[in-house]
């Protein structure tokens, strides 16, 4: 096994997923299966190969620095689970 159940818990925390015990067990199996499958890539010598992050060579697409109309606040907040005074509302972050 490449990835232990503890590793899975750590990755889940990094991904901000609160997994149940059952999910952790299942994912540990699934992920290890996939990682074994990925090992096939090590057959290839890629030392001298450039990585492809994008198929078309696009770099720094600029536009003129001009103000354009943007969404009104009520539209921006239209889907917010909670909002207040034209802001997104979240549980308290800073202790008082």
């Amino acid at each position, binding site marked *: 096994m490449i990835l232990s159940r503890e590793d899975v818990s750590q990755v889940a925390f990094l991904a901000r*997923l609160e997994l149940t015990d059952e999910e952790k067990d299942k994912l540990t199996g699934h992920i290890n299966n996939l990682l074994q*499958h*990925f090992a096939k890539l090590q057959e290839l010598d890629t030392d001298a190969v450039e990585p492809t992050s994008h198929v*078309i060579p696009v770099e720094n697409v600029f536009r003129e620095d001009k103000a354009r109309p943007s969404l009104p606040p009520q539209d921006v907040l*239209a889907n917010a689970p909670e909002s207040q005074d034209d802001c997104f509302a979240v549980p308290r972050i800073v202790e008082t």
Partner: protein
Amino acid sequence: MDLAGLTVKAAHELLKSRQVTSRELTEAVLRRIESVDDKTKAYVTVTSDIALRQADAADKRIASGDAAPLTGIPIAIKDNMCTRGVLTTCSSRILYNYKPVYDATVVERLAAVNAVMVGKTNLDEFAMGSSTENSGFFASRNPWDTEKAPGGSSGGSASAVAADECLAALGSDTGGSIRQPASFCGVTGMKPTYGRVSRYGLVAFASSLDQIGPITKDVTDTALLLNVISGKDPRDSTSLDVPVPDYTKSLAPDVKGIKIGVPKELFGMGTAPEVASAVWDAVKLLAGLGAEWKETSTPSVEYGLPVYYIIAPSEASSNLARYDGVRYGLRSKDSPDPITMLMKTREEGFGAEVKQRIMIGTYALSAGYYDAYYLKAQKVRTLLRRDIERAFEEFDVLVTPTSPTVAFGLGERVDDPLAMKLSDVCTIPANLAGIPAISVPCGFHNGLPIGLQIMAPGLGEEIALRVAYAFEQNTDYHKQKPNL
């Protein structure tokens, strides 16, 4: 007349000559949805009111003598494309109530020619899957046999087109999600060149692979939709600033001298004998029409699956970080503090497949593993691209099965993720290389459709369409309809 069963082209002729109104056509499609959608489960949302309003607007435009090829045509949109004021769920609980405040560029372009939107179609949650069984709401079904999967992730769109619940649809394709369901449902589906169609307003899954494309009843209709949705969009900096040809001009049933390559590796990986023989028959038919063919080798495509299943989840884990319960979608009721809110919202909102991919991606991108997985996969992606580019130095198109098998049974592969992913083995290379590929029906096995995939070099949509059209015009698989 069976209006819902018409192609876009045929409906356009009737609209233009004023034999039918868009309202009549749209009402016929809505009635068809009413009568068969409980069998196909193709739609997440049917937008009847909007459709009828748009149909009336289209009729006015047509009355003024201005009937564009898609004016008044009822079209379905995969539910991962933003539609202003209309639910856009990605078939995920985490977006169960999301109503975008803007339209995707493709939706805008369809509206600009007064096409009619009849509804939003089901998908594997966030387009992650190959059967539409990963939908957070319900599984869609294959109109040819409702116990079989329609394929995925654009299973709702493909099922709706095959069942005449729309005249055409839009899908999105990250690893085969337009072509594989088109193949399973016996319709035509095309993934254009990466950047050919704007992704603005397409909910991001894997940004270096995602591309929007048409799912239609024949090749002509694919060309008609492609004409409208293609082109540069300043809001998607990866969209290509290359003139859009009139794709209907490629519809010549002539393949004389066209060089077809048949990559042997893509026949080797679990291709069912009946699929292989239907595809070989297709190659021979094209040869009979004057094309030349030869077997070829693109060895690195064998690494396509592992490359894809590292790159796509990595990009997804980053893209899906935005679902935090703050700005839209679900927020867990159990949100005493921000971190708990994040973790519980994502736990409650995402389904098993999405979680698995976020986990894989997070791991592949994490410190210490980045080089071994993500970077390695990107390098192998380069090798794969080179192999494919090399093949196109010799050939005009590459032909393979779209999927190694016909539609599998619902539930059959849910617990076997590798078998599920294998159904994308022939479609993934086109996404990794960014090239266009089309799937057209090329046979049946046990009453289930088989798909032929035609790949072309980057921006070679025209040659892919031409070969697909020539094949279609000499066969009648695309004219067959399922009994629902």
